[in-house]
């Protein structure tokens, strides 16, 4: 056990709130500045903080590299998939009017899903970049 108790305890306190803030920024992106990109970066920051404080091995046990690497393309698939769904229902690419029967609902849910895609990709990309650099030369 190393002598960084303060760091560990405060990190344990902060990380849930950072995650929560990420989710807030994500969902509130409809009404105020924010959205998937910012939320993704914040969420990634939480993981990176965890890795810095508790070590790479611990962090990779919680958030395995395979998962984050898969998140990068997965988010884009969610994003682009929504666009393709619109096209299938007869709209332009990413024209959410056609996503659901009611265009207003379509816009709402369309943007929501797309932003989730952005969150997944950005968080995944940020953590992947961190892992890639931090693990270089160790394995």
């Amino acid at each position, binding site marked *: 056990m190393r002598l960084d108790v303060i760091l560990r305890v405060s990190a344990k306190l902060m990380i849930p709130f950072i995650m929560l803030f990420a989710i807030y920024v994500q969902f509130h992106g409809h*009404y*105020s*500045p924010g959205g998937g*990109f910012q939320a993704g970066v914040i969420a990634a920051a939480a993981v990176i903080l965890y890795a810095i404080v508790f070590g790479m091995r611990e962090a990779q046990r919680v958030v395995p590299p395979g998962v984050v690497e898969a998140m990068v393309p997965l988010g884009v698939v969610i994003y682009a998939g929504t666009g393709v769904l619109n096209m299938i229902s007869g709209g332009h690419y990413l024209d959410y009017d056609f996503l659901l029967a009611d265009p207003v609902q379509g816009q709402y849910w369309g943007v929501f899903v797309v932003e989730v895609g952005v969150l997944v990709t950005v968080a995944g990309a940020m953590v992947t*970049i961190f892992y*890639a*650099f931090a693990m*270089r*030369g160790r394995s």
Partner: protein
Amino acid sequence: MDLLESYPLLQTIAERYNTWAVILLMVSGLYIVVAKSNMIKTLIGMALFQTSVYLLYLSPGKIIGATPPITDTAFAVYSNPLPHVLILTAIVVGVATLAMGLALIVRINEAYGSIEEDEVVDLVDRQDKAEE
């Protein structure tokens, strides 16, 4: 303010302070790219150069006293959102480029044992010569 009013040229210069910031950043960034041999520093210069362009886009979009462009009866003046969206994209591109560049530098360091461009290029030339 009196000083500015009595010298119109000075006023013209001062009014465009954002442009001066852009120019300063741009030129220093470009200089670093050209002059520095250390690859990390080159990338920093490159990032600086890109940042100056972000400012070039963003600063004219800000209107003092305006709000985000969300329609509401209480406000009439909105900032132009387009530059923000564009530059958000550009920042992402910049991050990706930086990550790519750094990754390459790590690999170059592993392959050549140096991140000084002069030394690396020297080794490359030597390998070229050895082949001929």
